């Protein structure tokens, strides 16, 4: 009987396998994965679509990762249901996989809003390599694409399409693009840069209907926006975001909110059952509450925490927060935590804005602790600021320096320098 069973083989599953093997070299591990291919980086799908990365390049672990880690891999198999009393996972073909410790790392699936015509040929989502392969094939002959969603995923796919020389219209329900990552000023900067690249941006709107072609009703011919405007296109990409794949937990004792509810050890309310990654609601240290944060680095880390705990090494998750680095349209951006605080709630904001350099820095403080970092076009010190934020360091003494070009580790108080710099005197 496998000691550890992991459902899902992406970021959280990988993190868990690596963490388990750091502690337990021999305990049997079984991984159940719907996809048959080796581990690949989902955030790199836009690079695949643009033609920059081959699948080979997207492989984020060695080809023989399962073998190296002595894992029994059930590839191309779907977990259908759980029996928490019997401690088994039922597969689609009727096989039962028993477990001692179970990790649900089932991830998310693309959110597709209800739209008339969303079943037409030429409508794509964007999370799996199989989707990306179909999309890349379609793009060989495509000319005009409507991208629904102008968040991180929407912007990444839009850049890929622009690199392929396609006409792109981005449609975003919010009044601003990248609204979860940037404030109005940052968003406007990026909007103008993306427009300059030839992209049409429609904000405050969504797609109401997808219409067919006059000669072929089944194939995408245009979309109708909520303001009645009709945008001709041959391809629609839905890039709004992901929703957690909680199917296995539905109808069981496992506690669900929007995702699977876990404690700081990534354990669910059911003993020996853990959850990590996009399916789980893990701790956000900025908001001081658990929530969905479907981000690759956090999924790996949560998987590591679950794996360590499953293997008997008690490990607490320090928490993550909404954090992304972007590399699109030639402008590096880092956004961490709160980008848009509501004014009345006692935040202090440090701003540096130099539009001629496309430079924008905004640090949000609460009681002299960093709670939000936005860096546009100069991100070199992002990691140090993130460290100060995560460790709730009081920055009062060097506050003025943190958005200046003079901000270095040498600015930090002696005790902090010593503590931080691993052995530096």
């Amino acid at each position, binding site marked *: 009987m496998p000691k550890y069973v992991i459902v899902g083989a992406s970021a959280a599953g990988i993190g868990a396998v690596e963490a388990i093997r750091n502690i337990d070299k021999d305990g049997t591990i079984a991984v159940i994965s719907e996809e048959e291919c080796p581990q690949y980086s989902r955030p790199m799908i836009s690079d695949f679509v643009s033609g920059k990365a081959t699948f080979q390049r997207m492989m984020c672990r060695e080809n023989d990762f399962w073998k190296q880690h002595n894992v029994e891999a059930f590839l191309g198999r779907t977990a259908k249901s759980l029996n928490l009393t019997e401690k088994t996972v039922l597969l689609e073909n009727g096989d039962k996989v028993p477990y001692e410790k179970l990790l649900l790392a089932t991830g998310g699936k693309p959110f597709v809003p209800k739209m008339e015509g969303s079943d037409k040929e030429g409508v794509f989502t964007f999370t799996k390599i199989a989707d990306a392969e179909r999309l890349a094939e379609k793009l060989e002959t495509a000319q005009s694409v409507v991208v629904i969603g102008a968040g991180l995923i929407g912007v990444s796919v839009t850049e890929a399409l622009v690199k392929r020389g396609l006409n792109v219209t981005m449609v975003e329900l919010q009044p601003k693009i990248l609204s979860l990552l940037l404030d109005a000023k940052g968003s406007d900067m990026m909007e103008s840069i993306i427009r300059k690249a030839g992209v049409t941006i429609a904000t405050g709107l969504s797609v109401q209907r997808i219409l067919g072609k006059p000669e072929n009703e089944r194939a995408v011919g245009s979309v109708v926006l909520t303001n009645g405007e009709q945008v001709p296109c041959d391809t629609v990409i839905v890039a709004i975001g992901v929703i957690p794949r909680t199917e296995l937990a539905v109808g069981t004792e496992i506690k669900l909110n929007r995702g699977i509810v876990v404690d700081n050890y990534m354990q669910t309310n059911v003993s020996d059952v853990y959850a990590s990654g996009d399916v789980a609601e893990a701790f956000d240290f900025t908001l001081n509450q658990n929530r969905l944060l479907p981000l690759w680095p956090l999924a790996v880390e949560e998987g590591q925490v679950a794996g360590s705990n499953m293997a008997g090494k008690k490990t607490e998750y320090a928490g993550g927060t909404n954090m992304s680095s972007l590399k699109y349209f030639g402008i590096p951006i*880092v956004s961490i935590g709160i980008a848009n605080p509501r004014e009345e709630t006692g935040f202090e904001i440090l701003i540096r804005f130099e539009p001629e350099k496309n430079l924008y820095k905004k640090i949000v403080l609460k009681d002299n602790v960093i709670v939000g970092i936005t860096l546009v076009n100069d991100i070199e010190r992002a990691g140090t600021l993130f460290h100060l934020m995560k460790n709730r360091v009081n920055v009062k003494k060097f506050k003025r320096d943190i958005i200046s070009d003079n901000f270095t580790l*040498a600015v930090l108080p002696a005790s902090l320098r010593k503590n*931080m710099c*691993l052995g530096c005197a």
Partner: protein
Amino acid sequence: MKRIIANEQVCMGCGLCEVYCTVQHSKSKDIVKAYNKEKPRAISRVRLEVSKPISFAIQCRNCEDAPCVTACLSGAMKKDPETGLVTHDKDKCIGCWTCVMVCPYGALKTDISGKVVAKCDLCMELEEPACVANCPNRALTVKQVKK
């Protein structure tokens, strides 16, 4: 594993660590050519951190639980289980800057191509890392630490 240790008490802030790191990572490995001929100039993997009167040089610490390795989207950053070193595979790197976002030390920089990161490799091919060997005041030394 080797770790380079900075002693800010004796660092003069001369910046020769950055100079010799640049030379070591240049094409020619010749100081005159590296600075005057090679364009763009190679990137120093070590940073001299200055806030007068304090100065010290810092480069990748090869952290035990390296946040850059956990966060890396492409698998370019790895922790070598044998040597303990954090290695960076340029061919796998996609320049997403996620490692930059999580490195407390600012030890990851944008390479001259602007498309991948550059980090300290401890000059494994040399007897002693270039920054340490050329530090005139012995403010940088190599210490053997646990992985």
